[in-house]
């Protein structure tokens, strides 16, 4: 398939845009593949892309039960950052952010990565101390971080509530200037096109319904489009990991929960950064179309439903008004829910499983989107080499049993708290 460039744009414009080729093929599944990736979201597609590009494994299928990017890749709030404190997370997410910085170029597809800065607000002296600690940890790990005082925050984001009446007065904030947003659909499309061009078969409307086992291996997957043999198999199915694992008799340290997100009617540009509220779970940015994109807490009960409930919507709006009072008359355009695989320490699980040729990529909690390229990078390595990459060595499944948790929020084994 042709490269996209200014010349191809001009050529197609002059011919009435009738000669654009499809961005990826729509192949029939082959009887078997060296590697089968279950899940055609960002993580599964990135894994297939790096398997083909970095490891030379091109006999790969990505199986997607619906359409590309119809799961959490198209349901997140598009935020990208690497402002983590603990080493295992910090190095992994920083690698991911570095991959984001070159992703459009690498894919020959504009993912509209916008490094507009991610600012976390602090509302007490204790929170400022905590942010100073996290910022210092980030800088020691080579990640950019700046601690801002109240006046610096006010200059940067004047729309926040700096009034005397503010229920949660703003003391300052922690800024990661290299954080920002990306266009989430473009990420799925660009990775799909990139993987397809390297020979990966992307098979949509193909739901995995069961497995053929032989000893401690999976020989084949049963799907709505027939049985497909697999040398190795990787799960990148976000909130449905628990369901697929149950089909294999595996119990995981995961609960599936629903998280809602929202977009308002479009406005002219007025909110230039990604800002998170420190007093409640709320975060806000403005999309390139002008809509304010925001999210909040989980609905807090186990769910596979991809839809949430009204009390949570009410809660999120209240938090939003406390942070940015000027949006009080704004109307909500759309809201939706995605199913999160909440791990028991709030950090992801990428690595080998108790089954010989099965690899797991799950437990993303609220934060899978930002990890998309990094997740694919280390998961492809784990599958190709049958051993974790140094960047995901700590993110292994057995860390819970060994007591080596990566609990960024220090809240313990309660998924809703992460």
């Amino acid at each position: 398939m042709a490269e996209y460039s200014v010349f191809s744009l001009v050529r197609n414009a002059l011919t009435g845009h009738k000669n654009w080729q499809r961005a990826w093929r729509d192949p029939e599944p082959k009887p078997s593949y060296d590697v089968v990736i279950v899940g055609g979201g960002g993580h599964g597609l990135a894994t297939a892309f790096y398997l083909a590009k970095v490891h030379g494994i091109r006999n790969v299928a990505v199986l997607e039960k619906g359409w590309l990017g119809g799961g959490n890749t198209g349901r997140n709030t598009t935020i990208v950052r690497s402002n983590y404190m603990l080493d295992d997370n910090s190095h992994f997410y920083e690698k991911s952010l570095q991959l984001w910085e070159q992703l459009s170029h690498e894919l020959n597809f504009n993912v509209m990565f916008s490094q507009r800065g991610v600012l976390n607000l602090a509302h007490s002296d204790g929170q400022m101390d905590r942010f100073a600690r996290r910022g210092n940890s980030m800088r020691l790990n080579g990640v950019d971080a700046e601690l801002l005082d109240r006046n610096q925050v006010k200059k940067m984001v004047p729309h926040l509530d700096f009034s005397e009446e503010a229920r949660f007065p703003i003391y300052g904030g922690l800024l990661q200037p290299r954080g920002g947003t990306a266009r989430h659909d473009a990420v799925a499309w660009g990775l799909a096109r990139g993987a397809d061009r390297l020979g990966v078969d992307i098979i949509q409307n193909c739901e995995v319904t069961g497995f053929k086992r032989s000893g401690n291996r999976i020989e084949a997957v049963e799907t709505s489009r027939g049985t497909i043999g697999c040398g190795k198999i990787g799960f990148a199915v976000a909130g449905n990991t628990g369901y697929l694992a149950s089909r294999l008799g595996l119990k995981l340290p995961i609960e599936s929960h629903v998280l809602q997100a929202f977009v308002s009617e479009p406005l002219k540009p007025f909110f230039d950064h990604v800002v998170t509220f420190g007093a409640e779970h709320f975060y806000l940015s403005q999309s390139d179309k002008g809509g304010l994109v925001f999210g909040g807490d989980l609905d807090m009960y186990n769910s596979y439903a991809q839809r949430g409930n009204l009390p949570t919507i009410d809660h999120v709006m209240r938090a939003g008004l406390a942070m940015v009072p000027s949006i009080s008359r704004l109307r909500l355009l759309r809201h939706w829910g995605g199913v999160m695989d909440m791990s028991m320490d709030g950090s992801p699980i990428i690595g080998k499983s108790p089954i010989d040729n099965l690899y797991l990529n799950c437990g993303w909690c609220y934060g899978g989107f930002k990890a998309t390229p990094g997740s694919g990078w280390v998961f492809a390595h784990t599958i190709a080499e049958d051993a974790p990459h140094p960047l995901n060595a700590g993110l292994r499944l057995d860390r819970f049993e060994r007591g080596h948790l990566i609990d960024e929020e220090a809240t313990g084994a309660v998924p809703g708290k992460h």
Partner: protein
Amino acid sequence: MLYIDCPYCGSRGHEEFTYIGDATKKRPDSAEKSDSAWFDYVYLRDNPRGPHLELWHHSLGCREVVKVLRNTLTHEILGAGRPGDEIAMPDAETER
């Protein structure tokens, strides 16, 4: 809104409740020495797609703990009772 039939207060909206989680996990005996039994209790979950037995705390009501059977795919509430009550699972036509 989910409406939970509290055995003490009757049908109440779920915003009065605080979700606790999986009701099938049983704390091992305090003399239990094996790490795997504690690992299972603290971290592992069945996480079913379908009927799920769970505990809710009626924190803005009677402050009692209520056991609820709820479908995690449809959010339909299939039964509720006291923590010691047996709540019948529906016939298994829904997915596990």
